[in-house]
């Protein structure tokens, strides 16, 4: 719930299974924990996941977090169309919407006062040298405009959340994070 005293950011990251949604969420949570914030991370689970969509909810705060389930997000990171229609109406007034403009042409009907940024995540990922890291681009974009953390902090946490055998992807992922942030910051 939104609160008067300090940070209480409720983020939903959503997209297809396979887009790295879960990893993006865990990375955000891990970076926040390292930064000394209170944090919760809640994935969609079980049969919900069957059928190809995935989402996760991350709450960042500087006081105890009530419930990890986000009913009215303050920020949305949306990687496909289906997720947009599901979550956009729930955004809090004054919230932030980051969407993947490589897959979503247009965004209709968001609540009042929501800031909307379209990120051509696929193109940026390709530019960053790693077409698979759209998730990092999107997360980077969020951190570039809104997050209480920087893209660098997220990049520093990559080693904690990636399995050993994927550590070779850290540089590319870091780059994707950086470029995402850069893009968003310059498109507010």
């Amino acid at each position, binding site marked *: 719930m939104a609160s008067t005293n300090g940070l209480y950011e409720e983020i939903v990251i959503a997209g297809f299974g396979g887009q790295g949604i879960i990893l993006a969420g865990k990375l955000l949570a891990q970076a926040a924990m390292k930064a000394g914030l209170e944090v919760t991370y809640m994935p969609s689970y079980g049969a919900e996941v069957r059928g190809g969509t995935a989402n996760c909810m991350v709450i960042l705060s500087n006081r105890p977090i009530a419930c990890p389930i986000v009913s009215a997000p303050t920020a949305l990171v949306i990687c*496909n169309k*289906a997720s947009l229609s599901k979550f956009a109406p729930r955004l809090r007034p004054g919230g932030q919407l980051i969407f993947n403009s490589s897959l979503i042409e247009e965004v209709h009907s968001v609540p009042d006062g929501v800031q909307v940024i379209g990120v051509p995540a696929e193109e940026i990922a390709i530019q960053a040298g790693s077409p698979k890291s759209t998730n990092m681009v999107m997360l980077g974009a969020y951190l570039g405009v809104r997050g209480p953390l920087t893209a660098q902090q997220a990049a520093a946490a990559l080693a904690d959340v990636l399995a050993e055998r994927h550590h070779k992807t850290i540089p590319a992922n870091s780059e994707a994070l950086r470029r995402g942030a850069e893009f968003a910051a310059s498109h507010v």
Partner: protein
Amino acid sequence: MAGKIVIDTERCKGCGLCVVVCPKKSIVISKESNKNGYFPAQKTDGDCIGCAQCAIICPEGIIQVCRDQMERIRIVAAPEKHSASHLIEEKA
């Protein structure tokens, strides 16, 4: 013996099984994803013979197959006794 298939691409999950079984290689996976984010199967202009292999293997049951000649394919799998259960034939 020319055939024709219709794939309901919006419901396709892009599993590719139809592609693999098509003896004429006349199905491919599209480069465009559908609204569910899957890259669906797509018929090519190849010479479909209407053998229905793709339709038989498709887990989504979304391929319709037509063929020049009316014909019934009989699978004679278990016709030992004579009863309702042994009339094994595919619906034409």
